[in-house]
């Protein structure tokens, strides 16, 4: 089995008014190809911190993150930018689409950034929108889209550069139950079909049956319950 995302003995501390607080403590996680892992935990337990480290947004105090088997430790800002662009697909809580880009342009933009040829990019964007049932909305600005539609565009954008890892930060928080189920369903099936390693931080217990594994962040470690 290949693990496209490996987090190896991650420890993270924040310095807060001279006091060191250990948020993540020797956390290890392997996410296999095609797997969707849900991470739960009380507020302040460090879920966002965990996801930021997995997504090359934050360097851990110690430990290693490996994407497709390669460590990202010690890379400079530019290289981390490039890693996020090519190897990671982010789906945020809300308002993560660029307001002045039409649905299709959201996808074209990330493709352009990574240097994909525009005719190829256009073809891939069409195919993704088709697959996520958003073809008819491709010319719409985010403000004209419903919450569920926006998240579907966000998923399409995250998939656009064919990343190794999908990371979602409470993707259902701004959606009603049915829409939330749809979005997580989509995430799970895309991860499976395209062989991505997916991690989703969530508060939403209803979507857990759709995930392959459910982990709890407790005292800085991930445990299965």
């Amino acid at each position, binding site marked *: 089995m290949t693990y496209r995302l490996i987090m190896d003995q991650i420890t993270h501390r924040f310095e807060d008014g001279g006091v060191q607080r250990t948020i993540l403590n020797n956390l290890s996680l392997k996410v296999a190809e095609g797997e969707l892992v849900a991470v739960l935990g009380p507020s302040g337990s460090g879920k966002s911190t965990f*996801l930021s480290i997995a*997504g090359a*947004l934050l360097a851990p105090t110690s430990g290693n993150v490996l994407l497709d088997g390669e460590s990202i430790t010690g890379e400079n800002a530019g290289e981390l*930018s*490039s890693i*996020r662009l090519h190897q990671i697909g982010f789906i945020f809580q809300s308002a993560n689409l660029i307001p002045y880009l039409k649905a299709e342009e959201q996808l*074209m*933009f990330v493709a*352009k950034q990574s240097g994909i040829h525009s005719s190829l990019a256009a073809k891939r964007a069409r195919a993704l929108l088709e697959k996520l049932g958003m073809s008819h909305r491709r010319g719409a600005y985010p403000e004209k889209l419903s919450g569920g539609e926006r998240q579907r565009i966000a998923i399409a954008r995250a998939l656009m550069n064919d990343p190794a890892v999908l990371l979602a*930060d409470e993707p259902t928080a701004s959606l009603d139950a049915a829409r939330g189920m749809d979005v997580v369903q989509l995430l799970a099936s895309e991860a499976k079909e395209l062989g991505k390693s997916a991690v989703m931080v969530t508060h939403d217990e209803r979507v857990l049956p759709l995930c392959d594994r459910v982990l709890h962040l407790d005292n800085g470690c991930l445990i299965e319950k």
Partner: protein
Amino acid sequence: MYLAIREMRFAKVRYALIATIMLLIAFLVLFVTGLAKGLAYDNAASIENMSASHFVMEKEASHRFTRSLLEESVLSQTGKAIGEENVQSLSVRMTTVTNAGAEFKLDVTLIAVKPEGWLMPSVSEGHAITSQSIGEVLVDSKMKESGIGIGSIIVDQGSGLEWTVSGFVSDESFSHSPVIFLNESDWRQLQLKMNALKGADGAASDRSISAIALRADKEQVEQLAAAMSQTEIVTKSQAIAAIPGYKEEQGSLTMMILFLYIISVFVLAVFFYVITIQKSHQFGVLKAIGTRTGYLVKSVSLQMLLLSVSSLMISVLLVRAIEMMLPSGMPFQLHVSTLLMTCGAFIVISLVGALLSVYKISRIDALDAIGRTTA
């Protein structure tokens, strides 16, 4: 630039608003610059038009032609030093004249030069004067408005001397007054008459000219200055700045222009900064999905550039249109070189205005995108 252009397309009103403000400021800057240049020219055209590089003046004259008096021997002395063909005598006096019937009074500047020398402007109408002609003068064409034509008699109020207008020259003014050109012998006549009126004898007449115009390079000037103790060598721009009213007028206009530039930096900087702050979550998301900071900085700078260039183009057209509608007597002058320099300065200013936003963008953390509920 994918983002920059699409954002401007999306938020048309917002960017049109900034462009309008930039357009108005740019227009004002161009207009005031044109006015300043026009006034400067109107004020000092005669000196400005002279092909001299320096002027020799009396030491105590504080760079003013009208205060300076030199002995004519200085002319031959400087001529020996840098070549006869590179020196010309120049005499300046401000006075009031009337026409023969004393129907009006006019403040004018009398300038006496050698008619065959290189300080004499070319005649635009009528015929030129020579060193031999007696009582004949060339006058600035603005004096036509006072009803003066070729053959008219002009009476100097102070001395009572009379001159006949033999021709016109154009764009000749000194301290905003029209200039009357006379030859050196008429100038000597005037000096004698004035001295006689003052009750002095003819002894003072050996100090009869105001200044000497030079065509010299820096080295020659330095040598010359070292050789002469009673005189001072003044550059052309120093001499122009010392024309009565010139410094004050240009100073206040320059201050206006300077403040307009400062105001534009602030307005643009604040406008862009506010927009950038509004978008900081968005910049966080962009950084999180792998957009480089350099790309975002370029994007904002490009927007600023597009806005400033387009509003400059419109304001240049506007200024040119207004210029054509201005009455002919209005001092306004905007040469292409001034125009280009002003536009260049404005573009630089607008990019300076974008700096604050660039700084802000560079400080935005991609982490902002995660774990925030902000809309």
